[in-house]
C-alpha cells in the first residue's frame, strides 16, 4: 500500500496497542514520565561515567547504586537495524501494516539503543547508519495518557 493510500491516522500505528508502563517494581518510571515532557532520558553512572539502557537498579559496569541517575540526552541517533512488518500480530494492527520499526543507537549517550517506529512512508528504503531524530508522539486521549518516542530521518 503506497503512503498516499494509507488511512488518515492520528498516530503512526492504529490505536488499540497496549500503552507503556514502568516495571511493576518501578523501574523505568522516570523515563516514561520524561517522555510526557518531550525529554529523552537514559541512565548515567556518575561513578564510572557510563551510560546504561534499559534501566537497571544499579550500574552494571561498576555496581554503584547511588551514582546512577537519569540524564537528559540529545534526541538524535542513527539507525542500527530495522524491520518492515507485514503481518498484524495484534488485532489493532489489522489496518496498520506495513509499518516500520527501527533500532536507533544514540552516539551522544554511549551508543545505547532504543526501539521505535520510523515515521513517513512505511515502504521507504531504510538504510542502516542513517541519522534520525526523535519525535514525541503524545497519546493524550488514552487512559492512562502516554507518549511514545518515534523517529524520523533528519
Amino acid at each position, binding site marked *: 500500500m503506497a503512503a498516499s493510500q494509507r488511512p488518515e491516522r492520528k498516530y503512526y500505528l492504529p490505536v488499540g496497542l*497496549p500503552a507503556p508502563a514502568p516495571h511493576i517494581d518501578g523501574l523505568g518510571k522516570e523515563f516514561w514520565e520524561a517522555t510526557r515532557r518531550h525529554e529523552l532520558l537514559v541512565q548515567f553512572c556518575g561513578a564510572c561515567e557510563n551510560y546504561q539502557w534499559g534501566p537497571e537498579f544499579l550500574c552494571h559496569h561498576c555496581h554503584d547504586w547511588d551514582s546512577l541517575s537519569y540524564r537528559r540526552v540529545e534526541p538524535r541517533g542513527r539507525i542500527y537495524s530495522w524491520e518492515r512488518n507485514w503481518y498484524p500480530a495484534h488485532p489493532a494492527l489489522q489496518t496498520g501494516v506495513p509499518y516500520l520499526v527501527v533500532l536507533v543507537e544514540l552516539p551522544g549517550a554511549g551508543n545505547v539503543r532504543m526501539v521505535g517506529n520510523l515515521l513517513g512512508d512505511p515502504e521507504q528504503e531504510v538504510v542502516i547508519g542513517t541519522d534520525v531524530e526523535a519525535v514525541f508522539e503524545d497519546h493524550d486521549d488514552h487512559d492512562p495518557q502516554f507518549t511514545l518516542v518515534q523517529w524520523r530521518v533528519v
Partner: protein
Amino acid sequence: MTTSERTIRGKVAIAGIGETTYYKRGQATESEFELVLQAVQRAAEDAGIDVREIDGFASYSNDRNTPERIATAFGIPEYRFSNMFWGGGGGGGSGAVANAAAAIAAGYAETVVVYRGLAQGQFGRFGQGPRVNTVAGDGAFTVPYGVMSPAQTFAMRVRRFMHDHGAKQEALRAIALASYRHAQSNPRAVMYGRALDEEAYDHSRWIVEPFHLFDCCMENDGGAALVLVAAERARDLKQKAAYILAAAQGSAHRQGAAAHNAPDYATSNFKTLAPRLYAMAGVGPDDVDVLQSYENFTGGVMMSIVEHGFCAPGEVNDFFTLENFSSPKGRLPLNTSGGNLAECYMHGLELITEAVRQVRGSSTCQVPDVEISMVTSGPMVQPVSNLILATERG
C-alpha cells in the same frame, strides 16, 4: 576436582524416543496433556522399559504439564527428580536433556524423561501479541511500537547480521528449502507432500522483513519425549544407544538487556557455548556428521551455524546452499526431519528425536555412517543450549 574432570561426557545415553501424531495448530483431537502422556508412554516403549520405571522429569519453556500430574496418571510409585529449564522459546531443548543427564550422573534418578507438549490451539499462541491495556517493564519499550511476536523480536538481529556480513536472502532460503526437502521423505511431517521450491519461497508473503512466511517456524499441536538412562544400562536396552558426548547451556554478556541493548546484538547467542561444547566432546565442527539446528526463524539458524564454526560469517553466501544442507551427501546435512519449519514445531524436541535417529541409523533422511550428531537449541533467546550425541561413549 577440575572442571575438565567434572564432565557428563559418555556417562548417559538417550535410550528411547516417543512422539505423537504431529498436527497443524488447533487440529489435535487430544488435549495437550494427553499428547504428553502418549509421547512419554511411547518413549518408554521404544526404550523397552515399563513407563513406571521413570523416576525423573525434565522439561523447558514453562511446560504446562507437570511431573506430578504425569506421574499420577501413570501411577509411578515415586519420582526423585523434577526440573524446569528457565527461558522461553526452544532455548531449553538441549538444556533439558543436559539437566536430565546431570541428574542421572549425580545419582538423583535412574530413568529420566525429557518431554514437551504443545497444543497452541488450546492455549495462547506464540505468534500473537498481548491483549491488554498497558504493558509493563521490558515490553513497554517494544510492544507499543508493534514489536511483540517472536518474528518481530528477532528480525532486527538478523537484519544487522546480514548488513555486517553481506549475507543475502538466498542464504536464508537455502535453510528453508533444505527443511522442506527433507520433510518430503518424512511421513510424520506436517509438510509431507507439500514441496517448496525457490520460486514459491521468493513469492511467499513477508511476515516481517527479512523473514518470508517460509523463514518462520510453524505453529503445531503435538508431544515428544526422550528417555535417558546411564550409559552402561543403555547398552543392554532395546535400541542402539545415543550417547551424550557433551552439552552446554547459557547466555553471553547482557544478552537480555531491555530495548534490544545486548552489546553483541547480531548473534544467535551461541558464541560462548560452542567452544565449551566442542571442548567437552573432544570434537570440532569438522567432525559433525549431521546437524539439527533450532529454527524459530532461518536467520537464527544462519547465525547458529556460523557461531558453531561451520563457516566464517563472510562465507555465508557460498556455504548456505540447498546442496550443502541436503542429506545424505551435503557438507552439513541440516534439519533432516524437516524440523520446526516443515516437520512439526514441537518446540525443538523433535530435533533431538531426529538427532537420535541419525545415531541409530533410522532417519527418513539418513546420513551414512553417522558418528557425531549435533543439536543447537533456541537461537537468539536467553539462555540457549546445545548437545552432541554419538554412537560411541567417547
